[in-house]
């Protein structure tokens, strides 16, 4: 039986259509997926992301542990509250998960991992953590709400006492802070400004209703997917997994190869791959004809070989279809995509497609 978040009954009450996502019963949409998408691009929307895993890592050597565990380097995090996006790799350089890690103190980091991988991640992290004497706690007591859109921060801070609200508004991008019972971070997965807020599970329903009463739209995972794809953000399991490495997944920028003495898991496998030159790359596609790009459709470059779409959808902002695709490294400016036996033309672009409500293509 699928797991439920603290907001499950409220989603049902609000008329959401529920689907299984990574073993969780989650709202895919409330009324109109496209309407919810536009609410986030133009105003503000709230998503239940309580299915994601929140892990607290504590110990005197937690920094050294994370420098081994993660492909990005937590030494980049200087100020408490600062967040870093990273892949966690296996020894072969394949992506076990992508995650955000917050530096909270010299003894305490917090990680947010994907819902579908959290059990696997926890087992892997605990297996690696032993030597470093790091204690790993899964924070199942917390709910998480993502409030996203150009009006999101102004509205969400109205739920906080004035001093905490002012402190939340002062947060820089990719920084989080404990404000009373809530941990408020200026992060997201939509390409818009906003917060991700972790709070005690008992606070979640009142917070959601409060946001609704301020005009923040309830949004489901359907809109979350079209928003993240427009923003050029990868989805674990679609755009990368254990069989692909970050450099062929558009995530080379998250792998900190310098300093060379940092021995993170996966480094030994990745170094020869990078030295030899990459065979494949992840690119953005914009369909130039009518139709909808979907995951697993075949991509035929003019140059050589073939590729495959990893995520595709209709973009409500651009009113055309967009995709991420893994293609041969030699692929140039145009490709064809096979849809139901027909070859349709598409243009290769560098993601993101949309940022802060504006088209970038």
């Amino acid at each position, binding site marked *: 039986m699928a797991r439920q978040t603290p907001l499950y009954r409220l989603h049902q009450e609000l008329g959401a259509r529920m689907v299984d996502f990574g073993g969780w019963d989650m709202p895919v949409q409330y009324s109109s997926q*496209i309407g919810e998408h536009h609410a986030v691009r133009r105003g503000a929307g709230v998503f239940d992301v309580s299915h994601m895993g929140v892990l607290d890592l504590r110990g005197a050597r937690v920094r050294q542990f994370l420098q081994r565990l993660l492909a990005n380097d937590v030494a980049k995090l200087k100020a408490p509250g600062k967040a870093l996006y990273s892949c966690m790799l296996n020894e072969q350089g394949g992506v076990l998960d992508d995650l955000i890690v917050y530096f909270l103190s010299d003894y305490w980091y917090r990680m947010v991992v994907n819902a579908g991988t959290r059990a696997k991640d926890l087992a892997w992290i605990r297996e690696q953590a032993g030597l470093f004497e790091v204690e790993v706690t899964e924070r199942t007591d917390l709910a998480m709400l993502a409030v996203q859109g150009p009006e999101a921060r102004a509205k969400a801070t109205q739920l906080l006492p004035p001093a905490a609200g002012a402190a939340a508004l002062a947060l820089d991008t990719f920084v989080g802070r404990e404000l009373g019972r809530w941990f408020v971070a200026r992060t997201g997965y939509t390409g818009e400004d906003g917060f991700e807020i972790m709070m005690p599970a008992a606070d979640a329903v009142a917070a959601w209703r409060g946001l609704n009463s301020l005009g923040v739209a309830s949004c489901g995972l*359907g809109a979350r997917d079209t928003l993240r794809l427009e923003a050029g953000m990868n989805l674990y399991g679609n755009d990368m997994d254990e069989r692909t490495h970050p450099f062929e997944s558009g995530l080379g920028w998250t792998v900190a190869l310098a300093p060379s003495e940092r021995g993170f898991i996966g480094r030994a496998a990745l170094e020869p791959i990078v030295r030899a030159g990459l065979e494949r790359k992840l690119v953005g596609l914009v369909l130039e004809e009518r*139709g909808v790009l979907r995951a697993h459709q075949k991509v035929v470059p003019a140059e050589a070989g073939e590729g495959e779409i990893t995520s595709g959808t*209709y973009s*409500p902002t651009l009113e055309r*279809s967009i995709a991420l695709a893994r293609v041969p490294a030699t692929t140039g400016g145009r490709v064809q995509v096979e849809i139901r036996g027909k070859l349709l033309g598409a243009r290769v672009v560098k993601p993101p497609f949309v940022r802060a409500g504006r088209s970038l293509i």
Partner: protein
Amino acid sequence: MSNLPAELSYTKSHEWVRTLADGTVEIGITDHAQHALGDLVFVEVPDAGRVVKADEPCAVVESVKAASDVYAPIGGEITAGNPKLAAEPEIVNADPYGEGWLMRLKPAPGALAAAALLSAAQYQQVLDSEGD
């Protein structure tokens, strides 16, 4: 409870069929189907002149989420695909039994009588058994 005009015939795969005065039939998807799919963003209809068998996939409706085939309820020759839907697929959501028709078809001899069509009441039972 879905909106089910009594004068139409239906299929288990959620198409509707309207018999026109000239003996051809008009085909679309039901209100239940458009609602289940969500906002449509692409519709592909068959060209006039194509000959289809009963239960053959002959049109595609795509929402943001997924693509779905539409099956010919009756064998015959396509006389028209709705030309408006290429530019405005959302018409199917707004008016599934009217402006949102997908195709017109001239049934092959005997095909209309042989088709396993449902009345509105029978189709409602199909929806009830699906948990609508």
